[in-house]
């Protein structure tokens, strides 16, 4: 087989990482993604033991997580399984649902704060129109970020993931990096 070199969405062999005073931004190319949609009349499944969340929410299980994306529709995440056929596993776990592979359609940036929730919330308040008073652990929403449509997921108090279309990975990185660097001035 032809010997091909894999690149991440930002065009490098290694995922990009930027460290700032309080925040780190890390490209996460290891996250497998698949969408799951109920068919008419089908019963809500519990793939890999996940209790599929209500609108606007995200839940984590053992190595997998899920967030709501639309009525009767969820995105399922599996950390470290981007190289595998995760969608096939999900289809097997929820055979009555429609499952679509999403891994390479999205770019995921993990933003982690090293000094509490304040810098993270300051960043979000500049970038997205989300009511932060209500954006606690386990919330996930799709919104606009500099005119790009993104999912924003609150993984914990000091950790937020921003997920955008892979085709604008560079622009999204630029938006995040610029906003974080301006927090320090």
């Amino acid at each position, binding site marked *: 087989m032809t010997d091909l070199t894999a690149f991440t969405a930002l065009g490098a062999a290694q995922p990009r990482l930027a460290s700032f005073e309080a925040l780190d931004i890390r490209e996460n190319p290891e996250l497998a993604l698949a969408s799951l949609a109920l068919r008419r009349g089908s019963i809500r499944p519990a793939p890999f033991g996940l209790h599929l969340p209500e*609108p*606007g929410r995200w839940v984590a299980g053992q190595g997998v997580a899920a967030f*709501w*994306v*639309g*009525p009767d529709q969820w995105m399922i995440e599996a950390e470290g399984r981007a190289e595998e056929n995760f969608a096939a596993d999900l289809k097997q776990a929820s055979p009555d649902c429609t499952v679509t592979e999403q891994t390479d359609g999205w770019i995921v940036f993990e933003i982690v704060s090293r000094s509490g929730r304040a810098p993270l919330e300051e960043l979000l308040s500049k970038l997205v*129109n989300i009511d932060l008073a209500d954006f606690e652990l386990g919330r996930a*929403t*799709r*919104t*606009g970020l500099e005119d790009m*449509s993104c999912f924003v997921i609150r993984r914990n108090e000091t950790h937020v993931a921003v997920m955008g279309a892979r085709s604008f990975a560079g622009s999204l990185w630029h938006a995040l990096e610029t906003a974080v660097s301006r927090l320090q001035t």
Partner: protein
Amino acid sequence: MLIPHPILGSRDAREFTYLGDVRLVDRPDPTGPDAEAAFCDYVFLRDNPAGVHRELWFHEQGDRSCLVVTRSTITHDILGAELARDFALARKRGGE
């Protein structure tokens, strides 16, 4: 402007795309005897009310649902919003 999304609560209007008058939901029967005239009205004719107006808004940067938003064109007050799917299903049930 905030739109009261029936599932997600108040959302910024900038997340939405305006799709037009709600009468677009009532697409005429293309096999009907007067289909050409009906489609001509459907495509080109709109009321232009001063006051309460029902219109379709698509939550593009959100959950991708289509809403029927009731809005006053005089005051820009948003008087209500419901899922277009529920609206269309209720219409269909009412018409049968």
